């Protein structure tokens, strides 16, 4: 169907086509700033802290200490893109891992089959979250807080007095092992994380599902009036978040070669920090997946570097908090709404030359 009013000149195509960027791996100003920060942090630790970068294999091996956080962050960011939150990721990780471990320990299931069932368990737990939120209309914050209590207790109950441990080496390798080519070693965790990161990046920026996710996050009413099935999109986000949490739980139990019921507790707060630092707005819609991935590496490597340099965990945590406040404050000051972070930063530097993009803005009355 073509409706073409007949009066007046059509604006030049060059105008309308202007600068459609390839968005495949595009980074906005915020993500670029994070990337620069990541390079600075890595380089200065590499130069200043002995043991941080002795060789590439050793450097890569460090990532095994924080990539479970990254895996959770990927799933959690989908939920935060919708404007929701999933506080049950830690509990989900523990419960799914403990269930998988018990299936292996008590029922004699193959560890990989048990792991797949653990992943499904994570999806199921995410589905319960979604059901509570969508069907019972309970705020995501409260819904997932409540289910996190339930899941944690369930994990403790399933784990019993002596949590299962002593998994087969092949399984343990997933958490702490590395693939070797001669003297070069590439951790399995990184082998899991990299494809997932690419997948999520594409999912959010390029797929129809990602577009719906972001639309719901910006304005769920408008999404509904546009024919997007909002409950379905939300359910998918929570189910995926649950599965990612479960995967992180499995990787953690491989890392420790034991599945403990409190294993996932550490995941939650750091992961939220990663997603928020990555530039995803807690109110939904705004943000890019690329930022989250860079933020995972930034916070993870920063922590590792600090620990190697001899700072205590306490100092590292404090610094994480300070970075979070500082970065979000900077972001808010250079509000991304008009012109983007980079442009605003430039505008500030070359102040007199800038009339400001606001001059041409028309707000809807």
């Amino acid at each position, binding site marked *: *169907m*073509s*409706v*073409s*009013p*007949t*009066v*007046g000149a*059509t*604006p030049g*195509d060059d*105008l*309308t*086509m*202007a*600068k*459609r*960027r*390839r*968005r*495949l791996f595009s980074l906005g100003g915020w993500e670029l700033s994070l990337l620069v920060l990541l390079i600075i942090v890595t380089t200065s630790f590499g130069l200043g802290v002995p043991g941080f970068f002795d060789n590439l294999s050793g450097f890569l091996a460090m990532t095994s200490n924080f990539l479970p956080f990254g895996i959770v962050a990927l799933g959690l960011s989908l939920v935060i893109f919708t404007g929701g939150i999933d506080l049950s990721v830690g509990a989900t990780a523990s419960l799914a891992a403990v269930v998988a471990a018990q299936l292996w320990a008590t029922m004699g299931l193959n560890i990989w089959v048990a792991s797949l069932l653990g992943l499904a368990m994570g999806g199921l737990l995410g589905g319960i979250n979604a059901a509570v939120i969508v069907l019972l209309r309970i705020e995501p914050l409260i819904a997932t807080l409540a289910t996190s209590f339930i899941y944690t207790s369930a994990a403790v109950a399933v784990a019993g007095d002596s949590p299962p441990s002593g998994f087969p080496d092949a399984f343990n390798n997933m958490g702490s092992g590395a693939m070797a080519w001669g003297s070069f070693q590439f951790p399995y965790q990184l082998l899991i994380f990299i494809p997932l990161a690419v997948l999520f990046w*594409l999912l959010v920026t*390029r*797929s*129809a599902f990602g*577009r*719906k996710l*972001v*639309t719901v996050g*910006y*304005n769920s*009413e*408008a*999404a*509904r*009036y*546009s*024919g*997007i*099935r909002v409950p379905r999109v939300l359910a998918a986000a929570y189910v995926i978040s649950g599965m990612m949490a479960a995967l992180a739980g499995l990787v953690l139990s491989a890392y420790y070669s034991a599945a403990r019921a409190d294993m996932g507790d550490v995941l939650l707060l750091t992961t939220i920090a990663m997603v928020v630092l990555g530039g995803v707005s807690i109110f939904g*819609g*705004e943000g890019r997946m690329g930022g989250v991935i860079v933020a995972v590496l930034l916070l993870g490597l920063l922590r590792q570097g600090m620990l190697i340099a001899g700072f205590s965990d306490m100092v590292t945590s404090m610094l994480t908090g300070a970075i979070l406040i500082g970065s979000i404050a900077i972001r808010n000051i250079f509000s991304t*709404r*008009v012109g983007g972070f980079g442009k605003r930063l430039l505008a500030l530097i070359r102040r007199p030359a800038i009339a400001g993009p606001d001059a*041409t*803005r*028309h*707000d*809807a*009355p």
Partner: protein
Amino acid sequence: MIQLSREPVAQALLGARGIAKRFGPVEVLRGIDLELRPGRILTLMGENGAGKSTMFRILAGQLQPSAGELTLNGESLRLASPHAAHAHGIHLVPQEPLLLPELTVAETMFLGRLPMTGAIFRHVDWKDVRRRAQAVLRMLDLDIDIDSCAKTLSLAQLQLVECAKALLHDCRIILFDEPTSPLTSHEVDNLFVIMRRLAADGCTLSFISHRTEEVLEISDDIAVLRDGRLVDSAERGSFDRARLLSTMVGRTLRDIPRRESSYVTEQTVLEVDGLASEPSFRRIGFQLRRGEILGLAGLVGAGRTEIAETIFGVRRPTAGSVRLAGETVTSKPCHDLIRKGLVYVPEDRARHGAVLSMTIAQNVTSGLLERVRQSAGLLSDADETRLGATAVRDFRVRCAGLDQPLRELSGGNQQKVVFSKWIATGPKVAILDEPTRGVDVGSKEEIYELIEAMARDGMAVLVISSETEELVRLCDRVLSLYEGELVAELTGDQINPAAVSASYLGSAHAEGAP
């Protein structure tokens, strides 16, 4: 007459000279002169959007005029805030004055100005509060318990409490923003008794109404606004119903270009039968044919948007049926209806119509993402660019580029993007709710041409509009709605401004007459 105040009456004469107000490029008031005199009731009349409420909000300090000045007893007056207006004795009674439902009547009346007592331990003098609240209610002969909760009162009672509140704080100028439309005729009578008494006591009163009969009954002076201008003002005596209606509508004198060609066919695509969604509307039935532009006229709150939302499946019907191209689609969810060819352009663009933070291209494709070509599950950037560029070109959207956030466009261009989003899905039926809301005058005609083009292409279009001129300009047929029911159907030459306005205002007067 009962003397309401303890002291000799301080009289207040509120004047407005050359008041103008613009919101961005939109002029809502131009050069308004008014005089509110003590002991008299001045009525502001006008159609939806004539600028009555804006004028009141300026008089009450809620808005600052863009030009012109206010005077009080001849002296220039600047009202920086509602608080300042109150300090000068100006009180605005809102149409639905339920602010804090948990407060008692006495607390409501003293809100923000509780009398304090005690030398060392300062505390609220509740005794004084109760005594004075009681006294003023008794003065007005109002039978309302000062200890009852605000939420237990009816709207009519709340309005009367607001009157009492005005007196309590020595406000001698009381403005009523369309007080009667939510009231029953008995409640209207009660309100008028109180208003007359206040006027007799020397208060300066003004109120807004649509209802000609009650305006003629209560007013001493009448001022008629149209399109932000004061078109007529005189003492009540020189007005009759005919003069009121014709000045309000005004356009009998001016010819509105009607469409020359009609694209109506015999093929019915939308049938609505006995549709109801209580309490908003009931017994709504009509048919919409291919190529037809059907208008839905009525006052704000008559249930027009609710009808549209019910047909579109985002509001539950309580009775009746909807058939789209012969298929029953009653209470089907909107994502189904969109695929079946029914689309809805909502009234509130920012909330329902579009995602202003997303780009033009993303908004264009948001209606039916499946249309964008995909490879390996990924949306094709090139294809989206093509769709976006086509929309921008065909609908002549003025923008800097497809990646510009919709928020940065003017209202008219935003609306064109929303139109393009739906038309690209190839609908059979389009429901347009206030299609030119927030659209600058220049772009209105472009939107009208778009709507005509939709009909020409064989769409059935339902236009909801509060602008009579718009309905006259566009529609093959107009249905009039009053308080949730269809009251008139206009066709052919009947579709002129006077007849369209009278079709629902006339009902208003019939109902509103005490």
